[in-house]
């Protein structure tokens, strides 16, 4: 898209904003605040005592494995589930609360929701799907224009007369996004919107979502189990497990400086090596004797907890922080056996074994290793994270 084009579209959109200014919607609308949220399904606590805030206009990701409670949390925000404890506020207004019991129905919350399965209505054309939210909200003024704008925004203006069954997966997902944004909700909630698309399309849609977020400036809450999506898209990543929040931070924080071993394992795909602190030095950091043999230095920045000499610790090592050791190198090197080699093109993924421990290394594409070979790898001292075991 050229600059002129984008400027024109920007102008049109801001014009609409001006007309809508009579409605009590501030420019910075869309802040979400969750306090002690709890949701129980038949005795199973899907969401237990979660609190977080989503700044207005931000892109926040709830990242977690399946069963971590992230989708339930999103459905609580939309009003599709009722809270069993805690409070949810949108723009300082309570939309859901367990005590006193308050539950603003989903249709009254002014949120857009994009479903994992797209949830398009098979009997309606693309145009009708996108017009539906405007019709039920009795916003018939400039309806055709607004539907067209929304479809143009997702690049589907020409397919307005199609039925969902005549669209590809990516097109269907874009229809469902257009339907969710057409009435200009304050908050857009997305439940794993890319997981049913193939890899190439996923990457493209990731970029499209970023573009949409910049263009519309609305608050987005995005649920995914794919760390790459979370890191690429978010201003804020909330890592969840077992219905709780493990940690919250920027993508760089949760990836490079995770606060716990579980985040390190999930977000960075880190391998875990266990050992005992052998030595502490102010400058060099901590020397750890590994249970599987060998030893590693951890820089002071990477240490969480006191790591007293003799304490049992766990080291999180990301695959890309291991490399084949150059000749003559000694410090932070490990002698391992190659268990599996996956040549990916841009790099090599090695699965290594050392004294019964398995860990992964992402080495350069020129790595010439065969299964069963002995290999000397060096671990980047600055990148290792140390946690109390």
């Amino acid at each position, binding site marked *: 898209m050229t600059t002129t084009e984008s400027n024109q579209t920007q102008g049109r959109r801001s014009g609409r904003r001006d007309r809508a200014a009579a409605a009590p919607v501030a420019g910075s609308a869309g802040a979400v605040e969750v306090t002690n949220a709890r949701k129980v399904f038949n005795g199973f606590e899907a969401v237990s005592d979660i609190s977080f805030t989503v700044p207005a206009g931000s892109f926040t990701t709830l990242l977690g494995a399946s069963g971590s409670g992230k989708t339930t949390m999103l459905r609580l925000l939309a009003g599709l589930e009722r809270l069993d404890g805690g409070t949810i506020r949108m723009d300082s207004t309570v939309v859901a609360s367990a005590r006193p019991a308050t539950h603003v129905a989903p*249709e009254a919350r002014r949120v857009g929701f994009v479903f994992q399965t797209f949830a398009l209505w098979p009997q309606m054309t693309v145009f009708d799907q996108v017009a539906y939210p405007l019709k039920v909200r009795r916003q018939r003024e400039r309806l055709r224009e607004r539907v067209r704008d929304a479809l143009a925004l997702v690049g589907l203006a020409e397919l307005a007369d199609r039925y969902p069954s005549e669209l590809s997966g990516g097109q269907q997902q874009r229809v469902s996004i257009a339907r969710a944004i057409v009435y200009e909700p304050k908050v857009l909630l997305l439940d794993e919107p890319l997981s049913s698309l193939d890899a190439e399309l996923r990457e493209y849609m990731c970029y499209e979502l970023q573009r949409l977020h910049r263009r519309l400036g609305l608050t987005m809450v995005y649920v995914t189990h794919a760390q790459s999506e979370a890191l690429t898209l978010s201003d804020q990543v909330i890592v969840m497990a077992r219905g709780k929040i493990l940690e919250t931070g920027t993508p760089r924080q949760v990836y490079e400086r995770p606060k716990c071993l579980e985040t390190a394992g999930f977000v960075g795909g880190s391998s875990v090596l266990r050992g005992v602190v052998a030595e502490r030095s102010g400058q060099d950091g901590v020397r750890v004797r590994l249970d599987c043999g060998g030893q590693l230095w951890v820089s002071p920045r990477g240490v969480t907890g006191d790591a007293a000499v003799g304490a049992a610790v766990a080291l999180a090592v990301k695959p890309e922080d291991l490399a084949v050791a150059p000749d003559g190198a000694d410090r932070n090197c490990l002698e391992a056996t190659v268990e599996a080699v996956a040549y990916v093109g841009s790099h090599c993924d090695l699965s290594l074994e050392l004294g019964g421990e398995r860990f992964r290394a992402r080495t350069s594409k020129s790595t010439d290793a065969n299964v069963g070979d002995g290999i000397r790898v060096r671990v980047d001292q600055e990148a290792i994270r140390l946690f109390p075991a």
Partner: protein
Amino acid sequence: MRTRVGAWRWVLALVVIGYFLVGFVQLLLASSAVSLVPYYTVTDGNPLRTLTLDGYRAELNSSLWAAVSSSLVLASAVAVLTTGAALLLSFVAFKTRLRLRRAVEAIATVPVALPPVVFSVSLLITVLFVPGLVVAYGTDVPLVIASVIVFLPFAMRIIASATIQVGDELLEASRVSGARWLRSMVTVMVPLLGVAITNAAIFVFVQSFRELGAVVLLISPSQILLPVKIFSSWEEGEVTSVAVLNVLSAVIPLAVLVVVFSARRLFGAARRARARAASTVDHVQTEVRGA
């Protein structure tokens, strides 16, 4: 893949044809044959010589049309009300979280276990003995109520199984789009259940057109319905008359079936053609753009 049945196809064909002959052709032939003779007898030498349309003429002159039209009206009303109720109850039972939802399903199933005449009797007692309700006696209201109760479980089975197949997220998408539950049900569910809804309506219509048990005790002498007329003609020993009415009460629902199914086919074909046209246009556009 379709299964190949090999030599079994002869056996299967026999079963299908046999069922058709016994269940359908036999019924129509027997009734038609009897309806065309002046009186029923077993030992007639050549029945063809006595064939006559007198039976039909006699019936047409009597109160037949009143019976047919009130049966049609009653069956239509029962079909619409039963299908509507089944739709609403299926929605409550499978697409809401009301506490009552399990009870709804149970209550809608119970009438299967009871003979229709039971409802007839209980409704009759209620109408006659509860003060004020007696005005309903002799009207169509108790007949409709009894029939709806009797047929609800069947309509419910048909519609509920289709309701379950509609993904929850289709309704949820409607809710977050800003629609309340009733509108979501009407605009999202009902079109998707089109086939199940017409099936249920046809089933109830055809059944209630000839159902006797639910209505036989509630009917007053001033009301005439086809099944009741058949029953009373039989009581009076007018076999030809019974046969004539029998043929009519088979042919009329059949005609309705044919009309509804043809309409549905045409509607479906039109929709498919429209969809095909849309995709062809796009195909051409793509080619033009490519060139």
